[in-house]
């Protein structure tokens, strides 16, 4: 066994070299991943700082020669972009709050109450997220234009015909197109399945004893929900809220179709207005997109672990 040390050293060296190769591969992979994820956004930022003539030069420049903020001014001057931001903010925030509230109530019922078929109800709610949003386009458009209320309308028509001229001859729902409601209502529904799923699995993690203790101390069931369970599940609600917010901020098709008045456009729709029939003012479009991404980047930077854990709840249980 005198020759034993030599092979050991040799094997160790190979292993180290192997580890070195794998280590290098992972490092390179990580760099490629960062480049893949961030390059398009970085390129937008660089484009937004260049002047229009610098963009139309060959060969193209990578870093801006004379950085300018002029494009950002143009974004606000060419279209009411501040209004678009306000619209998006109002619609997304309201939809997020309503969605999280509804999902929390439903999630609590599904996680805690002894209900028959609660598993089936949760499955049904989650299954609705497989429902193509596109299919909602036509019926919701008709609904939001205003439809006659079934049941009420014939009655009103009858009374009108009977000589009650002051009665309207039909009862219709209000025209919601070009209002915030036309977007808030569908956005709440679009995010409800995933947020309900996240909050249900979150409530299941909170020990039941705490709630029982509160009930013994004289709080009602709903009181226990709002005073004990809700504060404890704040992290889950934040996660659900972020996902609902991102969904609402990003939605395009319904916003494009329902809110066609210039003052009611949201950011994703507004951004498509900068391109002309043939001309693409890329510098201005890039600046507009950069502004539109800022809220999302902030959310990602501050809440990255929360978002990933929220998707865990949604992904594994779903």
């Amino acid at each position, binding site marked *: 066994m005198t020759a034993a040390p030599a092979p050991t050293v040799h094997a160790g060296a190979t292993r180290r070299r192997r580890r070195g190769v794998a280590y290098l591969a992972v490092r390179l992979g990580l760099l490629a991943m960062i480049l893949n994820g961030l390059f398009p956004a970085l390129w937008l930022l660089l484009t937004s700082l260049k002047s229009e003539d610098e963009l139309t030069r060959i060969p193209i420049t990578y870093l801006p020669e004379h950085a300018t903020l002029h494009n950002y001014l143009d974004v606000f001057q060419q279209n009411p972009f501040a209004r678009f931001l306000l619209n998006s903010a109002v619609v997304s925030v309201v939809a997020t709050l309503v969605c999280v509230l509804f999902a929390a109530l439903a999630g609590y019922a599904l996680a805690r109450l002894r209900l028959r078929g609660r598993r089936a109800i949760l499955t049904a709610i989650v299954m609705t997220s497989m*429902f193509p949003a596109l299919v909602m386009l036509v019926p919701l458009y008709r609904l939001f234009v205003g439809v006659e209320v079934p049941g009420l309308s014939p009655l009103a028509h009858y009374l009108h015909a009977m000589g009650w001229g002051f009665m309207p001859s039909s009862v219709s729902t209000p025209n919601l197109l070009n209002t915030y409601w036309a977007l808030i209502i569908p956005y709440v529904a679009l995010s409800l399945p995933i947020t309900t799923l996240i909050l249900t699995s979150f409530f299941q993690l909170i020990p039941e004893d705490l709630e029982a203790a509160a009930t013994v101390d004289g709080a009602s069931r709903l009181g226990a929900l709002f005073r004990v369970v809700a504060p404890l599940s704040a992290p889950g609600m934040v996660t659900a809220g972020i996902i609902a917010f991102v969904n609402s901020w990003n939605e395009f098709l319904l916003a494009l179709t329902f809110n066609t008045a210039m003052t009611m456009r949201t950011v994703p729709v507004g951004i498509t207005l900068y391109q002309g029939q043939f001309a693409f003012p890329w510098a201005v479009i890039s600046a507009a997109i950069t502004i539109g991404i800022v809220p999302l980047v902030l959310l990602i930077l501050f809440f990255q672990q929360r978002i990933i854990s929220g998707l865990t709840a949604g992904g594994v249980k779903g």
Partner: protein
Amino acid sequence: MTRPSSSAPYRRPGFWRRLRTGNLSDAQLGVLLLLPALLTLAAVMLYPMLSVAWQSMHFNRLNQPFRGTPFIGLQNFGHMLGGEGLVWSASKLLWLRLLGLASLLPLAWSARRRRIGRVAAAGLAVLVLVVFAGLLGLHPSATGRWTDARFWNSFSITLLIIVVSVAGSFLVGLPLALLANVPSRLRWLGRVALLLPWAMPRVFAGLTFAWLFQSQYGVVNDVLRRLGLHGPLWLARVDPAIAAVNITMVWKTSSFVGLILLAGLQSIDESLYEAAVVDGASAWQRFWSITLPLLRPSIAVALIFRTLTAIQTFDIPFAMTRGGPGRSLETLGVYIYNSTLALNIGYAAALSVVLFLLSLLITVFYLRWIYTE
């Protein structure tokens, strides 16, 4: 029933009182708490589904109100699907079909290794042959009499986008998830890079990539030029435009797949790997026999959601080329939107029904597949 007349008659406390004091039964409270969510879903999901089915059987053009909205049965569907004169051309999307047919090799290999049953393997093989060899090569002939060739065009481009972008997002998303799970000082930046495409609106992604693919001043062609190649007019020619849109879709959606798979990776017990290392398993063996099998539920979830969103592809082709050049990228989603815009409501509803049936079919197929596993 006789009561002692001295005591006041017993009155059960009212609903609100029981609500305040917490004496509602679980069922009552449950209905109360579930009501807002279920009502919203019913109004925004269930009502449209029924309404669209009813609408699809009517003639309804909002710009021709004088023609009324008569009930026409299944005529919309007949108009959509009917016709004759199908041609099969070997050249149509040849590269893609060869790629798809190549997937038969791993299928045969895993059937031999008994990783999947023979019946399932045969079924999948037939599916691959039909989709890749048949459907992607079939198209309405120019001289044929199709009442709506536009529908078949949008159907086939949607199918193409489903196949390419779903497969692509898994090919890119799995390595992304594995990389984001490796401990390193740069991991947080890697995760930001994984989250950003997920959070970015699809329209923004479409516009950004339209700029990257811009033929004169775009980065892609600049890089190609530096490599001595001549980049195509990406968004102005049919084939390059299809490629560009698919690349954008893969970029945007691989991060979603990556995130779901990352979540699955994080739930795998570390001690399994330690035991495998003790047993002398190589990294590749650990990946094949621990990571991949335990990742199956996450893969299934990601696959279902990815496919169902791919069916509805609208934003990215719309933002990049408005469904052009010509109508080459008019997906079913874009076609439904265009029909709605043309105020042809009945026909748009019929198209929506087809889209819905397609997603239902795929969901049922996947769910059966998951439950049999």
